[in-house]
């Protein structure tokens, strides 16, 4: 079942320097229940923008995003109850303990005491957070903070979980623990969208991936299908070659447009500074 449907998603920002910056250009993909969908790309590819739109933090310029069949633009309240969002931008409060933070967000999700506290106990036990449940955010290590963020995202038991570069800055032990958590969640039937640019994680976790570069999806599919299509079993090498090829294609496309339609038209499309 497709829990997340992204169709022709575009996002343009007004920019004081270049007039308009195209962050996402006709991005489409779907993510299903019980799978980890990898959203891959180098820095600046548009992954975070896409995931912020999925999390209802940003509005799409054009195109549609539906989560659990709710539209993110017109039904954001329903969408927020259906997702859990963990990002390196979603920090935790310095002056709140892990327990207080998760309890606070549980209250915001309108959980009753009967629902909230047993669920908190279960999550804290599962994520091995009992040792630092009273520790304030300012004293937590990066791994503790990330676990707290995940607990916060899981407290309302959402069917869709979005991880945006969640393993950034984690040591090997914590990163491996995070991967275990993600796999467990997948096994529970959750739909997980996992953004990263660490290829080892992709190979270990993702069932299907979409590779983004400069706001566009340049290829997508299962790891096996991508390897077969590009005749490359080393996924990191495959990723690299796709990016190089994409850059070449864009340069060629630009040259053709300038030759046929002139520089002004090219500039007006926000593709050139």
């Amino acid at each position, binding site marked *: 079942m497709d829990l997340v449907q992204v169709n022709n998603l575009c996002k343009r*920002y*007004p920019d*004081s*320097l*270049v*007039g308009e910056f195209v962050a996402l250009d006709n991005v489409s993909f779907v993510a299903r229940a019980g799978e980890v969908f990898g959203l891959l790309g180098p820095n600046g590819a548009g992954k975070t923008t896409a995931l912020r739109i999925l*999390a*209802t*933090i*940003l*509005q799409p310029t054009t195109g549609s995003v539906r989560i659990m069949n709710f539209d993110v633009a017109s039904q954001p*309240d329903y969408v*927020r*109850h259906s*997702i859990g*969002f963990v*990002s*390196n*931008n*979603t*920090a*935790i*409060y*310095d*002056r*709140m303990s892990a327990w207080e933070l998760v309890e*606070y*967000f549980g*209250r*915001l*999700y*309108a959980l009753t005491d009967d629902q909230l506290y047993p669920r908190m106990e279960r999550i804290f036990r599962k994520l091995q957070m009992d040792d630092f449940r009273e520790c304030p955010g300012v004293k937590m290590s990066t791994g503790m903070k990330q676990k707290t*963020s995940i607990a*916060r995202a899981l407290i309302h038991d959402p069917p869709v979980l979005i991880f945006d570069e969640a393993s950034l800055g984690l040591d090997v032990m914590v990163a491996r623990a995070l991967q275990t958590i993600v796999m467990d969640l997948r096994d529970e039937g959750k739909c997980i969208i996992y953004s990263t640019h660490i290829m080892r994680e992709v190979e270990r976790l993702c069932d299907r991936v979409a590779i983004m570069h400069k706001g566009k999806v340049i290829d997508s599919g299962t790891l096996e299908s991508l390897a077969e299509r590009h005749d490359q079993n080393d996924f990191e090498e495959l990723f690299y070659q796709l990016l190089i090829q994409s850059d070449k294609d864009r340069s060629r496309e630009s040259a053709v447009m300038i030759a046929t339609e002139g520089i002004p038209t090219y*500039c007006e499309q926000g593709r050139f*500074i």
Partner: protein
Amino acid sequence: MNWTHVKLIFHREVRDQLRDRRTMFTICILPLLLYPLMGMVMMQVAQFRREPHVNIGVVGYENWPNDYPLITEHPNDKIKWHRIQSDNAFLRAYVTGQVQGSNSNIESPTEAVQQSGTPAIAEELLRKLNADAVVWVPTRFKDSIAKESLVVLSNQRWERSHMASEFFNERIRDWHANWLRVHLQQTDLGASIVDPPQVRNIDASTSIMKRAIVWSKILPFVMLVWALTGAFYPAIDLCAGEKERGTLETLLCSPARRREIVWGKLLTIMCFSIGTALLNLASMHTTASVVMSRFASLGAVDMVSEMGPLPLQSMGWLILLVIPISAMFSALALAVACLAQSTKEGQYYLMPLLLVGMPLVMLPMIPGVTLSAGTSVVPVTGAILISRALMDGEYSLALLHLPTVAIVTVTCYLLSVRWAVRQFESESVMFSDGERTSMTQWIRNVWRKREDTPLVNESILCALLILVCLFFGRLAFSGMPLSWAGIVQSTIVIQVGMILAPALIMSTILTRSTRKALRLHNPGAMNLIASILLAISLHPTYTAFASLVGAEYKLGEETISLLTQFDAIIGAAPIWSVLLVLALVPAICEELVFRGFVFAGLQRNGGQIRAILLSSLFFGLSHGVLQQTITASTIGLLLGWIAYRSRGVGCTIAFHCVHNSISMLIVAHSSRGSSAPGWLTWAIANNNGQLCYSPSWQSISVGVSIVLMFWFAVRNSDKLVIGSMESPITKQSSLGFTRVPVSSK
């Protein structure tokens, strides 16, 4: 709106702030410590403070009348006298040694002292004689008091020396009064002739009332400064600080809507703002009570009576003042803090808010500023004045203006909240990268991305530029021109050079179509006729309104005198040139700018209301004088509406021109002493040489105006896609502001 979310966010934010040591110190601990510490220092100083005394050296005291001595040996005398012998070495050196060619008569040094020296020599003498001042008593003083002069050498640069000369003058007056009294007693007149009539003062106010009045002048200011301070730190921390720490994004993807987040944070900021102000009040009150009781025990009863602790009732009124004002400043602080991406940036952004708010807080402290219809509409100022009136016990006055102050305060508060919510909903505000600037690239982009109409910020920049130009322009043309040629010159320079030129230049550089940027649009004959008729029918109402404003905010004597001169010049000038220069030129220039370029930018993205409000505000401010700013802003609202309905400036130019023409015609006729033409006597009458509207026409004109406006609205209701308008008239003087020559009957 889900108030449970608001409550949860409020509770969390309050708890978070209470755990922050820096915030707690600034807004809670500091107020509690500050006043007791200040009180302690004051009491310490008071204990060690002694009545000042000065040393005065007297040379030649043997020449003083023996029966009426000047020098007394009372231990509490604030003057310590030192008799200096005439053969004192320092004195001799000063008088004889430093003055070249003097007679060196130490016994009669007047001339020598007057001629002598540089200040340095005199200072040296005072130091060596260990005196703050030196007095010479002339040789013949005993025999001829009235004719001989006492010479006092002092150094006014020194505080003690200044005091010494003051004390001596005071003492000599007392001595002379006694001397006179003794001598008068020996005559038929008697001593009582020099005594002034006795005055018995009866004060109707109690000591508590007097204390309330003293505190009412100080405390509202102090309270509001603390309310602002209390709002600033939480606003920065809860908005810019959370952005910086990344916790805001966590909240944005939670079920709480943006509006709910704003209300939760706003209530927190309000809570700390009000709390800070009240803590200060309580701490100040407690400290004042303790310090004053101490002073009372030391004998300073008068001071305690006037400055004693604040009456409890007054404290209640102050608390009532703090709540709405804190609410308003909190909302403003939150909205401004949203613009910042970091705590440091937030501090930069909030400082201007403090600077803008301060004049409103300080205005009530100016002597003579009292609660009135005029001051009650000024945000913050009105609230402070009403609080002061309540503290002074003027309840009927406060009650009279309470509705106005309440409406103004609530409106400002709601607008501030709305602004804050819009900031939170704006992606460009919440997720901007803030620090990136490249002027060259920005200019290149502005040129490349030009559109038919200006952007919002370009319109605002244009209006601000014009206001700055007008400010300096009016300084350059300070003083009313004394001839018609001078009026023509200043009007043309101001209207064309300072108002129209910036808009024309900006529309040429920043937009692709000057015609669209200035909203030059054919309004149609019927719309033009309706605008002209509306200008005629609304003029009596405008005149009456302007008279009301003039009565509430009175012009100074000098301004009235200048305007009288202006009217006389207008009366003597050819009428066609008056209409051309003071009616047509301002109508074209101001409408092209305020209902043209400025309006076009402001009404982008469905901002019609913003365009009407801000263009009228800028239009009013361009008139420079408070009274004219109010009337011009008010009529600017109507002009904005007309410009929006008619989608261009044609109708507003017609309205503005006709309005100014009527005003100028009335001024010219009044100053010439001529009556209205016979066919207009049903509408215009002569009242002591001033032309004014008849009551019947004033009443009828209101109805006619309503009908015309209704017709105009209905006729243009199908065109409201792009919206633009023209502006109505205000009477323009040569300095470019609206005047009201006609008094309503």
